[in-house]
């Protein structure tokens, strides 16, 4: 078990820089998820921790060793790959035991570790099959088993669930979380799926274009996004964003409609400031179908353009100031397109971003 520290880590391919000075401290036993759109540098960062990509600048420390120049085999890490990367010519048992065989462990030690891993991942009945004869979910479990037999300092997961169908993905997600509780270890997990990130992580690292945008617990990044990118990336449906200008303690939106500046931002804005108002669908609800709102709220009368019933709730598409926004309806009833409803906007849960820097004004 060990902590992992990235200090100003840089990756360059020739003139192209893909990771720009990433700083990150991962605690012992922490489950950290790197999340971001494709090409944001999250996988490259993971591969640099693994030692599969050379580091162009900065320092990576695992435990108390600087590992910049150590090959993967000396880093005591294990990795689960997106395409499982099983050894096709070896049985499940041999796949699981391979790293121990390479490490010249005795057969008894290997058998014990392999059986233990097989037990944890319920692989015992498949031990003599080749990977070709396994389903996607089973292969994924073998890949994880191969990682845990070694009792590494750090587990690295590179989009391990993206090749599985939706149902299996949810199931494996739970298994990974259970696994973390069982084997108690430091995990760095890369995904582009914010739901995976939210459900698994102790802390989420949101990356874009080779920079870290925000680091925080799932609730922190959900409740207090540092900028509009995080606001729209985390949470489903994405946060609604409306451009406006501060005028006499009100935010005037593009078509003249205005809402009061939420109280928590009143001393952080100035007259004439260009801002972006952000709120989630959960904070815009039709009157009579909303959670009780404690603090200040604004009422808006709008026509519904589309409704998506989800069972326990219905997503309503409407528009404010010419921009499509999504609202949520609890205790749903059928809503016809074009129907006008009175919506309540919970101002205490609203976010305000500076239009220029896109950063939160909080």
């Amino acid at each position, binding site marked *: 078990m060990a902590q992992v520290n990235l200090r100003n880590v840089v990756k360059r391919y020739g003139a192209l820089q893909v990771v720009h000075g990433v700083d990150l401290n991962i605690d012992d036993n922490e489950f950290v998820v790197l999340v971001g759109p494709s090409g944001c540098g999250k996988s490259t960062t993971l591969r640099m921790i693994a*030692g599969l990509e050379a580091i162009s600048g900065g320092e990576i420390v695992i435990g108390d060793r600087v590992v910049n120049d150590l090959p993967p085999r000396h880093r005591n890490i294990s990795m689960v790959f997106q395409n499982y990367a*099983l050894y096709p010519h070896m049985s499940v048992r041999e796949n699981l035991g391979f790293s121990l065989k390479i490490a010249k462990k005795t057969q008894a030690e290997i058998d014990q570790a392999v059986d233990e891993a097989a037990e944890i991942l319920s692989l015992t009945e498949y031990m003599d099959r080749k990977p070709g004869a396994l389903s996607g979910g089973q292969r994924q479990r073998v890949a994880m088993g191969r990682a845990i037999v070694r009792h590494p300092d750090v587990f690295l997961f590179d989009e391990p669930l993206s090749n599985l169908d939706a149902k299996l993905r949810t199931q494996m997600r739970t298994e990974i979380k259970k696994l973390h509780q069982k084997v108690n270890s430091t995990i760095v997990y890369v995904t582009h799926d914010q739901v995976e990130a939210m459900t698994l992580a102790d802390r989420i690292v949101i990356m874009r274009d080779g920079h870290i945008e925000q680091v925080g617990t799932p609730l922190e990044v959900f409740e207090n996004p540092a900028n509009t990118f995080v606001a729209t990336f985390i949470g489903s449906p994405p946060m609604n964003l409306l451009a406006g200008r501060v005028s006499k303690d009100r935010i005037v939106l593009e078509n003249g409609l205005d809402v009061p500046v939420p109280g928590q931002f009143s001393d952080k804005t100035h007259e004439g400031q260009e801002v972006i108002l952000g709120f989630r669908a959960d904070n815009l609800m039709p009157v009579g179908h909303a959670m009780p709102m404690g603090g200040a709220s604004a009422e808006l009368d709008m026509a519904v353009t589309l409704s998506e019933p989800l069972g326990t709730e219905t997503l309503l598409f409407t528009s404010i100031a010419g921009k499509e926004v999504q609202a949520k309806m609890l205790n749903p009833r059928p809503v016809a397109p074009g129907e006008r409803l009175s919506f309540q906007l919970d101002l205490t849960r609203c976010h305000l971003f500076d239009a220029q820097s896109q950063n939160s004004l909080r």
Partner: protein
Amino acid sequence: MTRFRLPAWFVLLLPAIIVLAAVVLIPLLLSLYSSFTSYRLTRPDSLYNWIGTFNYEKAAKSAHFWAAFGRTLLLLTIALNLEMLLGLGLALLVNQVTYGQRALRTIMMFPMMFSPLLVGFQFKFIFNDNVGLVNNALQSLGLSNTAIPWLVDGQLAFFSILVAEMWSSTSVFAILILAGLFAVPRDPIEAAKVDGCTPWQSFRHITLPYIMPFIYIALAIRSLDVARAYDIVQIMTNGGPARRTELIWTMIGRTGYVDAKMGYANAMGYISIFLAIFFTIYFFRKLNAARAELGMGG
């Protein structure tokens, strides 16, 4: 009155049957038949002189035949193994090259573009004891002051032929193994690195199983090639001196066309075909096993 008509399927197959019969079946049957006669090219009527298995018995008892057979087997074993190792090394090196790899691959194929006859002439010159490059180089460097009889001494001549054979055909292995290396997925290799493998261990445990099918394909192709080796030897030594580099096919060729004993030559030909068939079956078995190992189906 209805005319007799051949069935449609037979009419449709007839062109193929005629062509196959003319180019394969009849020559095959004729040669098989002639191996049981005392057929000599110079006396056509001897084709009807049935002598039973006399030619086969004669070949089976002939020390010359078995010497040539054994020598062919020896050449095949040594050449194939060395070519495989060199080809593997070459492929691994070229696979590491990132800039100019296409040009290198093309250059690597040059030896395959020359007729074996020309390769034979070239190496006959290179190993010539008077004006050859090798002796010239050895003497100029002061490593030797005698004219080494490369193509006259039995063992040296065998070695010289081996070198020529390898020069012209190592690239077959290199190209096929390189194709195999291109097909090796990156993920399992990286997984092996993370699992603690040294570069040699990743090669031994992961890369090699992936390229084994390609190696066996190359071995199967080349075993047929070497088993019928004729041209290079014919040019460089003509099986001589005094049969010291005689291979099966130089012997069969001489018996059939120089000595005109076509019946006997055909009998030896049929015996040696088994050598080729044996190696083909052997390497295809290995190939299928290697493919099954990778889960590619038997």
